[in-house]
C-alpha cells in the first residue's frame, strides 16, 4: 500500500514501485493569474497494477499525466515536486533524455482516437517511425514488427490496416492502433487518458477487456485517467480522487467503492445512475468546481460539501492515512475516530 509519509529522495522509495510522484505542482501562468492545475499531488504506481485518477473535468487529471511525460507547454510549468521512474528523477533530465524515455518507458494513450493519429500518414508509417525512433529498426523489419503489434491488440487483417489512413478506420480500430503503439516498446508505465470516453459503449467494453489482458501480459504499471467510475471498477486496483488540483482520497478500489470517506467521493458515487432502482432522479454533485486561480486557504470542496462545518475553514486539509492504505483529505474525517468514520450513517 501507499506510504504517504515517504516524501524524500529516491533512496527512501520502495523498490516495488515503478513510478513515484511526490508533491507535484504544475502551474499555468496566465494573464488572469496563476492557475494551480496540479497542486501537490503524490502517488505511486506498481508493476502490473492500475492506478485510476478520477475527478471532474478541470480537476487536473490530464495535466498530471502530461507533467509525468514532460509535455507541459508554456505558459504551464512544473513548479515543484519529484517524479521518479525506477528511482531516476525525471525532472532532472534534459529534454533529449526525456524524449528518449517518452514512448519507450512511458507511453500515452490519449482520450480521442479520432484526433490522436496524424490524418495524412498511414497507420504503418506512424507505427514504423516510432519503432525507428526507439529501436532503430526500419524497412521490412519494422513492417513485420508493426503487423505483429496490431495482431497483439486483436486487429484483424493487420497487413491491410498498416496501409490504411486513420480516417479509414473506425473509432475502436483507431484506439486499438493507439494501444498497440503505446505498448509496442513494452513501457514500464502506461498512461491511459480517458481511453474509452470517445467510443461506443459496446466498443468500450471490448477495449477495456483487451486492455486488461494486455496490461496483465506486459506487467506495466498503468495510470488510468477517467471520470467514468464504471471504467474504474473494471480496471483499477487503486484509486486517487482528484479535486481542484489535489488528491482528496486515495485507496484500494474496493475501499473507495465500499467505504468512501471524502464527501466528494461520496457525491461522485451517488451521482452514478443505477438501473433497477426506483430512484429515477439524477443526482449530480451540487455546485461548481472552484476557480484554480485563487484557491482559498481552506478545504476547496467546502462550498459544495453537504457536511461542511466551521472547522473546515481551518486551512487546507492534508491527505492523511485514516486506515492502512486509505488516505483522505477532509478535516471532519481526520478529526473523527476511524471507527466512527467507517459507520455508514453518512453514506
Amino acid at each position: 500500500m501507499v506510504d504517504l509519509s515517504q516524501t524524500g529522495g529516491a533512496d527512501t522509495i520502495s523498490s516495488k514501485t515503478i513510478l513515484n510522484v511526490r508533491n507535484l505542482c504544475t502551474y499555468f501562468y496566465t494573464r488572469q493569474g496563476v492557475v494551480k492545475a496540479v497542486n501537490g499531488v503524490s502517488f505511486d504506481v506498481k508493476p502490473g497494477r492500475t492506478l485510476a485518477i478520477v475527478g471532474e473535468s478541470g480537476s487536473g487529471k490530464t495535466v498530471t499525466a502530461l507533467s509525468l511525460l514532460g509535455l507541459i507547454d508554456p505558459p504551464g510549468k512544473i513548479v515543484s515536486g519529484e517524479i521518479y521512474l525506477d528511482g531516476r528523477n525525471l525532472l532532472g533530465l534534459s529534454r533529449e533524455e526525456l524524449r528518449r524515455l517518452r514512448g519507450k518507458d512511458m507511453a500515452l494513450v490519449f482520450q480521442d482516437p479520432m484526433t490522436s493519429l496524424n490524418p495524412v500518414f498511414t497507420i504503418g508509417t506512424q507505427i514504423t517511425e516510432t519503432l525507428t525512433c526507439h529501436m532503430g529498426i526500419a524497412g521490412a523489419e519494422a513492417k513485420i514488427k508493426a503487423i505483429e503489434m496490431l495482431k497483439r491488440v486483436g486487429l484483424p487483417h493487420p497487413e491491410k490496416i498498416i496501409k490504411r489512413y486513420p480516417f479509414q478506420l473506425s473509432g475502436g480500430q483507431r484506439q486499438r492502433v493507439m494501444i498497440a503503439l503505446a505498448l509496442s516498446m513494452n513501457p514500464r508505465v502506461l498512461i491511459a487518458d480517458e481511453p474509452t470516453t470517445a467510443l461506443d459503449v459496446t466498443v468500450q467494453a471490448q477495449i477495456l477487456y483487451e486492455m486488461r489482458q494486455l496490461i496483465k501480459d506486459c506487467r506495466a504499471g498503468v495510470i488510468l485517467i477517467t471520470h467514468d467510475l464504471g471504467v474504474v471498477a473494471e480496471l483499477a486496483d487503486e484509486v486517487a480522487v482528484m479535486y481542484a488540483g489535489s488528491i482528496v482520497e486515495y485507496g484500494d478500489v474496493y475501499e473507495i467503492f465500499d467505504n468512501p470517506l471524502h464527501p466528494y467521493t461520496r457525491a461522485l458515487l451517488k451521482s452514478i445512475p443505477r438501473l433497477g432502482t426506483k430512484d429515477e432522479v439524477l443526482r449530480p454533485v451540487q455546485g461548481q468546481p472552484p476557480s484554480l486561480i485563487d484557491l482559498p486557504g481552506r478545504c476547496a470542496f467546502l462550498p459544495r460539501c453537504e457536511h461542511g462545518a466551521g472547522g473546515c475553514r481551518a486551512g487546507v486539509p492534508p491527505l492523511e492515512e485514516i486506515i492502512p492504505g486509505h488516505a483522505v483529505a477532509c478535516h471532519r474525517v481526520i478529526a473523527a475516530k476511524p471507527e466512527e468514520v467507517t459507520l455508514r450513517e453518512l453514506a
Partner: protein
Amino acid sequence: MKQYLIKRLFYLIPVMFGVSIITFGLINLAPGDPAEIILRSSGVEPTLEAVDALREELGLNDPVYIQYGRWFRDVLHLDLGQSYRTGRPVAEEIFSRFPATLELTVAAIFFMLLISIPSGILAALHRHAFVDHLSRIWALAGASLPGFWLGLLLIYYFSVKLGIFPVMGRGGLDHLVLPAVTLGFGMAATYARLLRASMLEVLGQDYIKVARARGLKEKLIVGRHALKNALLPVVTAFGMSFGHLLGGAVIVETIFAWPGVGKFFVDAIFNRDYPVIQGYALFMAVVFVIVNLLVDIAYVFLDPRIRLERGRQV
C-alpha cells in the same frame, strides 16, 4: 486517381467553351471598327469604300454566330489570327514569348518557397518572439510595397550601385535574380504568414501532442507531421495566387525589359491590337485552368482523405 483526372479533364470542355465565348465577345464589344483600325495601323486612309471592302474580306458582315464558329474553328487549329501591328500569327508571337514568362514565374515561385516555408515555420515555432515580429513587419512591407517601386529600388541598389546583377534583359541566371525577387517578394511574405497561422493551428492538434508522447524527435514532428498538414491550406491558396504572379509579371517584365508575353500584351493594349489581346486572354485562361488542375492534383497527393474518398466516389 486516373478516373479523377479524366473527370477533371472532361470538366475543362465547358470551362474552355465559356472562356472562348467571352474572349470572342471582346472584339465585338470593343469600341471602334476593327477594319478601320487595321487600315489605320497599316497607314491606309480609312475611306468608306476601303473599310467596307475589308469588312467583307474579314467576314465582319456575317452574323455573329457564324463569325464565332469561324473563329472557334481557327482556334482549334491553334490559329489565333494575326497581329495588326506585326502582321505575324498571334499564336506564334505568344508561344515564342511564353517561355520567358514561365521562366520568370517559376523562378519567382522558387524564391517564394525558399523564403516563405522556413520563415513561416520559424515564426510559428517562435511565436511572439523576435523572428515572428520580423516576419510580421516584412509581411506588411511585402503586401504594401508596389512591385514597380521594389523593382526600381533593387535595380538602383544591386545593379547601378553595387553592379552585382544586370540592369535588364534576359540571359543567364544572374539576369533572373532581380525580376524573380521583385515578383515573388510580396507573395513570399504573405505565404510566410499563411504558413505560420496554419502551422500554429496544426501544432495545437492532439496528434502532435501524441507524436511528442511517442518520443519522436522534434525535427520530425515539425518538419513532417506538422508541415504536411499545414501545407494543405497553403497549396489551396497558391492555386489562386498563381494568377497574381502572372498578372504581376506584366509589370515586372516592363521594368526589367524582360521579353515575355506580359510586356507584349501591354504593347498590344496600347496599340489596340485586338487579335493579340483576344489570343492572350484565351491563352492565359488555358494556363490558369491547367495550373489549377495541377494544384488540385498536388492537393490530392498531400491529402489522402481527398484522394481516397474521391476515388471511391467515382
